[in-house]
């Protein structure tokens, strides 16, 4: 299955997200086609300067995707996910904004005509792949691996309401299906402060400390993230003094371990907090 993929600016430098995502996708026959010449989504910044510019940024990448024949775009970054999803909503619901954007796109010979849908690459991996492949690696002993799923803020908000926005169970249900013990903790969607970390290191540190505390309470072996900014921040600030240190992986890296993919293809060496304990624990499981 082929999909248009929007990597976002943090994808390549992230701690093995790229490697592990590619590895897992090839395992699942998913082909991610990078949108040629995509541009930054503007994240939380451009929308604070001018709606038109922020919509232009999104529209440009959308148009490029449309040009390559795809109206559904996948991304692996929560910030890109939310920014693009919001822009897509504005563009499809407001003709004038769309025209405005197209006016500027014209100079590059681009045009956006179709409605674009944005999905997190995780949704596809969880929902659109054949069950047998997963089942063939199922192992009850995995119950002994305690995983704390960390969604970050923007995957669930503002898109979901009610318990789903603070205590989602989407990733948990999937991992439990594979045999893992996905612990229920209170830090699932706490903000890690990444977007404001640079000028406010002290706050970012405090926020990450809270996340670590919530996770530690459920004695998790690892934190699983779905966003390069979350991963960077949570991984990095746990290295600071007096914060619990829990290996913080991308979900694709955990799935890689589940599929027993060679470690070197998962970029695990780039993690600041060593995942060794987890890897060992998983390798020493006697299959039941």
């Amino acid at each position, binding site marked *: 299955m082929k999909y248009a993929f929007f990597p976002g*600016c*943090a994808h*390549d*430098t*992230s*701690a093995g997200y790229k490697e592990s995502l590619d590895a897992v996708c090839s395992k699942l026959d998913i082909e991610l086609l990078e949108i*040629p*010449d*995509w*541009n*930054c989504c*503007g*994240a*939380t*910044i*451009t*929308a*604070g*300067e*001018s*709606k*038109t*510019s922020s919509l*232009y*940024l999104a529209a440009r990448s959308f148009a490029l995707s449309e040009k390559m024949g795809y109206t559904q775009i996948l991304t692996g970054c929560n910030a890109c996910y*939310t920014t693009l999803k919001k822009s897509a909503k504005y563009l499809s619901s407001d003709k004038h904004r769309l025209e405005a954007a197209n006016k*500027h*796109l014209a*100079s*590059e010979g681009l045009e956006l005509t179709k409605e674009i849908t944005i999905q997190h690459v995780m949704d596809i991996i969880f929902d659109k792949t054949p069950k047998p492949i997963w089942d063939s690696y199922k192992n009850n002993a995995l119950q002994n691996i305690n995983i704390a799923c960390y969604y970050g*803020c*923007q995957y669930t*908000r*503002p898109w979901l*309401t009610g318990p789903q*926005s*603070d205590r989602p169970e989407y990733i948990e249900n999937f991992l439990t299906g594979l045999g893992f013990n996905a612990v229920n903790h209170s830090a699932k969607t*706490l*903000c890690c*402060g*990444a*977007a*404001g970390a*640079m*000028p*406010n*290191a002290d*706050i970012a540190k*405090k*926020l990450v400390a809270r996340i670590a505390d919530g996770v530690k309470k459920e004695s998790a072996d690892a934190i699983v993230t779905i966003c390069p900014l979350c991963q960077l921040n949570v991984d*990095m600030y746990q*290295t600071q003094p007096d914060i619990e240190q829990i290996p913080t992986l991308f979900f694709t890296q955990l799935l890689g371990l589940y599929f027993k993919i060679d470690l070197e293809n998962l970029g695990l*060496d*780039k*993690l*600041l907090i060593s995942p060794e304990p987890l890897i060992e624990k998983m390798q020493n499981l006697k299959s039941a």
Partner: protein
Amino acid sequence: MDKENLQHLFFESEPGKEIRKCIQCGTCSSSCPMTDAMDFGPRSLFALIRDGDMEAVINSNSPWMCVSCYQCTSRCPQEIPVTELMYSLKRIITQTKEKTQSNKAKDLHRSFSSSLKLFGRVTESFIMAKYSLKHPLTGLSSIPLAVQLTKKKRVELKMQKVGSPFKFRRSFKHLR
């Protein structure tokens, strides 16, 4: 621009008038992860706007501190879209080119957006460097972390950019 017009501008901005519903319960401020770094929490900011104290509002660092986690929006008992209001505040300040006190968060925005405007994509190291020029101390203090990352080959020194930054710049410049 005089303050009354600014206030008017805000209430007219989508969805500015929503804050008339605010019951000042403080759910937004206490839900906000960055509240400790803000000089005014969202609630206080709304109170100031309703008082017409726009001087304080446009000089506040709060809108720039907002990291768009939407916790305030998802919890506000009056269903006020707080995050969106932060955006519209920033837009008003940017667009009216009001002279306002500088603050770290705002400078980060600047560094980010100049990187974006120049190359169409952003590069952490570039933002970092640009920001550090304005705030050398923060720059220095973050060196150890930077070193850690570099060791793990996670710092990209090559600039990320779109195919033709020149074209991009040209069409981007004409916006707004």
